[in-house]
């Protein structure tokens, strides 16, 4: 549609427009920044309801939910601390997101690398347990998170039996071609740490005999380790004299 000249607009309107725009910007700047509050993280609805809300596109919806959940994750001073969150609700949301998008790795990354980093053992265990349960549903894709959980259990929680349980699960279930050997070999070194040299030696010997390990450097390293285990086993056995 053709337009008239600018001069046809009354001066009052031309004068008021920039003033009112400046007032709006000032008003907006003076408002406090939005902040996530721990109590605003409500329990998630059922996966059926979430599927209905996704309007037939659960993956995109799961991604949006992940980003929304992330808004509760920020650091002190900016938003809220992980520690203040209700981990039961966080766990429920992460599970729902994984149900909507089972191939997505983001929720397990958040569980193992972010939420499990809080200085609260109960909350750490809750997240590691979530990673373990979700690993069992798709071991060949989700093994990196359980491998991280194994290290966390050993070094942060100092819970070797728990670390061993995770490492055994890795060795038993993560059997795909894309899973590196170090992940499946973790249980051997945990047995060694626990002083169970015989079990570690048997497992390592079995691994070498199976022919799975082909890389010469890796073979050399593992054979040396096997010999160390044999020495350690001998020295740990009580003398017959």
């Amino acid at each position, binding site marked *: *549609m*053709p*337009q*008239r000249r*600018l001069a*046809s*607009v*009354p001066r009052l*309107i*031309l004068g*008021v*427009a920039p003033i*009112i*725009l400046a*007032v*709006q*910007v000032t*008003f*907006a*700047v003076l*408002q406090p*920044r*939005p*902040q*996530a509050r721990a109590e605003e993280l409500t329990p998630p609805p059922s996966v059926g309801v979430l599927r209905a809300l996704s309007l037939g596109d659960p993956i995109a919806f799961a991604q949006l939910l992940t*980003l*929304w959940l*992330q*808004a509760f*994750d*920020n*650091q002190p001073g*900016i*938003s809220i601390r992980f520690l203040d969150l209700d981990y039961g609700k966080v766990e429920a949301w992460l599970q729902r997101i994984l149900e909507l998008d089972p191939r997505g790795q983001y929720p397990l990354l958040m569980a193992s690398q*972010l939420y499990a980093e809080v200085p609260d053992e109960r909350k750490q265990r809750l997240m590691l347990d979530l990673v373990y349960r979700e690993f069992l549903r798709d071991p060949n894709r989700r093994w990196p998170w359980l491998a991280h959980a194994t290290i966390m259990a050993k070094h942060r929680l100092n819970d070797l039996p728990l670390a061993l349980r995770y490492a055994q699960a890795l060795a038993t279930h993560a059997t795909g071609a894309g899973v590196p050997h170090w992940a499946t070999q973790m249980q051997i070194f945990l047995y060694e740490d626990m002083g169970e040299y015989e079990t570690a030696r048997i497992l390592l010997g079995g691994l070498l005999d199976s022919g799975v390990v082909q890389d010469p450097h890796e073979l050399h390293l593992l054979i040396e380790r096997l010999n160390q285990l044999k020495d350690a086993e001998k020295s740990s056995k009580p003398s017959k004299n």
Partner: protein
Amino acid sequence: MPSTLRKALTIARFTLLEAVRTRLLGVVLILLALLFLASLFVQHISVTETTRMQTGFLAATARMAVVFVLSLHVAGSMVREFNDKGVDLLLSLALPRGGYYIGRFLGFTGIAIAIAVLTTLALVALAPGQGLVLWGLSLALELTLVAALALFCVITFAQIMSAISFVIAFYLLARSISAVRLLSVSPLLAPNDWTNRAIARLVDALAWLLPDLDRFTSTAWLVDHTGSLASLGLNALQTLIYGGLLVVAGLFDLYRKDL
């Protein structure tokens, strides 16, 4: 009373009459009745907090529905008047364009208030009390802003399709801009990286140009009674400022139109 204001009020009255004659309020009532039935279904399938779930569902869906219906009505009414050359006829009388625009805006504001009252009444049985009054008043303010926005868009775009698309996009962005701001400053995104800082600043600038509809008509006011007069006062101030900005922008466009 100045004659231009008297004429503007006459136009506002006819705008209200048009809404009655096109059965707009009937449509809103039917819509609210359908949503109430849907909320009964939600209550039926909930295993706990049944009334809370029903209230939350009805409040959220009714708010979205009335926003959509009001925008459609404003856009439809204005485009029809343009197509019927009603605007040309009115402006050929001794009526300044500003008077016509203000009259239409006042009329649509009246309709927004009437729709807010009907929507609030639909929730009386579920969440009576001060929270509902605050929620209803906030809805009236929100709908007033939507009416001003739709009027500005239809004057600018002169087509229902583009005007409504813009209104919906603007409304959704204004309601979600707080969440977008929260996401944009996450330290998980390497806050020292200049691109992340630039994006965060860009989002902030965008937020300053939008009304913060996130603070309007919150369902929490109904179910958790978290609303207050102070919050409502801020909403009223935001409506006054942003409504004024939209009216001035709409007047600017109307005066430049070669009718």
